[in-house]
């Protein structure tokens, strides 16, 4: 309407938005700055965004300790879980949306029902099963229970339903089996949904903590989340050691940050799938 006139409200709007943006970003800047400070300086000048003397001592100490092991474990778990979820959830979603068989409705109702169970409630129960199956303190116990997620199946099923059936008919006539039709015809068309599942799965498994607490205690199986949480609660060390903790927190944030900026447009636009637990 009045593009030429300077709106008096505009200044206020920008001021509010900028102040809020500073509040949301500042904790991360403080994290970065203090991870490069000495411990006394971090305690004396916690707000200084430029260290008086820049030191990488915190990072060196982290990498001399168990930190690389934690990082590797997180990579192993997140990579396997992400790959598994993308495959299993798209397969399940395909079956529930496209294949006709008796019991399909029942399975779908089950998937929806399972989505309603709050994950934290399953903490103790999951340990009981993992222990009973002899999977405690192993990668399999840490990975397999995370390999399928009802919400992901739900997302895939809904997406497959939006792909027209006619694309499959041609392949059927050519004599392609169900798996071929799924793998080479329908799945490539479901790229946006597959990417959504990829992002959600990686983020969820990289940031997962409680499942790793109940599925292992062997230090060699510690993931980043568990290691850093125990570092923070002082279980592993004496003193505050804030630069080390902040450096650890920063490094564990990098992979999800990179992923976020790669897929930023998609994440910010497909908000329905980006709910954090």
């Amino acid at each position, binding site marked *: 309407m009045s593009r030429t006139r300077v709106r008096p409200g*505009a200044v206020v*709007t920008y001021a509010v*938005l900028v102040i*809020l*943006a500073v509040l*949301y970003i500042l*904790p*991360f800047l*403080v*994290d970065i700055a*203090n991870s490069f400070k000495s411990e006394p300086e971090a305690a*004396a000048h*916690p707000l200084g965004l430029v260290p008086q003397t820049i030191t990488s001592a915190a990072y060196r100490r982290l990498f001399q300790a168990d930190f690389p092991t934690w990082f590797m474990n997180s990579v192993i778990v997140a990579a396997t879980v992400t790959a598994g979820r993308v495959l299993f959830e798209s*397969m*399940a979603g395909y*079956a529930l949306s496209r*294949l006709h*068989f008796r019991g*399909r409705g029942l*399975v779908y109702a089950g*998937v929806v029902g*399972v989505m*309603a169970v*709050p994950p*934290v*409630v*399953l*903490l*103790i*129960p*999951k*340990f*009981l099963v993992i222990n009973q199956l002899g999977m405690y303190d192993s990668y399999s116990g840490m990975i*397999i*229970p995370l*390999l*399928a997620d*009802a919400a992901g199946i739900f997302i895939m099923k809904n997406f497959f339903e939006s792909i027209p059936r006619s694309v499959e*008919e041609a392949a059927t006539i050519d004599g392609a089996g*169900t*798996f071929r039709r*799924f793998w080479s015809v329908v799945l490539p068309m479901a790229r946006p949904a597959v990417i959504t599942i990829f992002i959600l799965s990686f983020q969820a498994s990289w*940031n997962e*903590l409680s499942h790793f607490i109940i599925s292992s205690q062997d230090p060699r199986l510690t993931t*980043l*989340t568990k290691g850093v*949480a125990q570092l*923070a*609660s002082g279980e592993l060390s004496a003193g505050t050691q804030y630069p080390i903790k*902040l450096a650890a927190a920063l490094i564990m*944030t990098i992979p*999800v*940050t990179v992923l976020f900026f790669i897929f930023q447009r998609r994440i910010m*636009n497909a*908000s*329905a799938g*980006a*709910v*954090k*637990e």
Partner: protein
Amino acid sequence: MALVTVRRHRDRGPGIRGREAAAGWLFLTPAIVILGLFLVLPVLMAAWVSVSDWTGRGSPFAAGVHFVGADNYGDLLATPGLAQRDFGTAIRNNAYYVLLVVPIQTVVALFLAVMVNQRLLKARGFFRTAYYFPSVTSSVAITVVFLFLFSSTGAVNDVMSYLGVHGPSWFADPRGVVHLLLGGLGVHQPPAALAGGSLLGLSWWQWISGPSVAMCVFILMGVFTTSGTFMLLFLSALQNIGAEIDEAATLDGTSGWQRFRFVTLPMIRPTMFTVLTLGLIGTWQIFDQIYTGTQGGPAKTTLTPAYLSYSASFQNQEWGHGAAIAFVLFAIIVILTIFQRLLLRGRA
């Protein structure tokens, strides 16, 4: 074309429907096995443990493990004692957390969404990214940063001292904020009416304590980490409204606030519904932050049912209690969600 297809498949034995059924089950097998083994079976197994006296040694199905009826639930809900007092404390703490985080994060998220949805706004992408970013990072990393920001010599107290205020030692401060407010008014001792023990081992005075100073930091953190996620949900709802409706309302001579209150708000009702429900379910499950930050301290004022369920089982070997807490928590979440839905539907 269809005829040809059917004939070709008929020639090949079991027929299209039969093979499709086999394929269907095959495709679903991995998901069903995993969800069944690690979601359905655990619930059944935990149901047994919650009515048993299993101590964590060997299998809960071994001969030495006995059925104890509703004893574990009784210890939490009916029998006065440490288990009941801890449970009551955890419920109180988490209730204050839910009561404050859910409304605040909803309002903040909606406010942010409305702000960044303005068509003439420059750098919209930057602002959206800034507000959403905390939602991407792990709660462990954010807790570590908050532990530093709110330590007694931390950045927050630094800022407060510039303003001439002596900040509390946040994460170590167990005082309830309602008690603090009452103390400011000169009420330091519970009035006689509130002093008696009344519910789940806590006196009314203890129930009305408000969240502790330590819990307030978690509340702030909860809003900080989830408002961005819900901002995106509101944003997509706002974008669906479309400019025409807003412009029509503008032509009718309504003020900005009236448009928001009588046009926008009713149209994003379903999203409001979703945000409140997800918020309610999520906030009753706070665990990671407590495990990383305070382990329930100071003076058990950040103990939550989820963390208590974990510590009762893994640290105190009271597996029956731990499993029972999980089920009571489940019941609380289900009941409150249904209650909330009825309440919101009733007002529609």
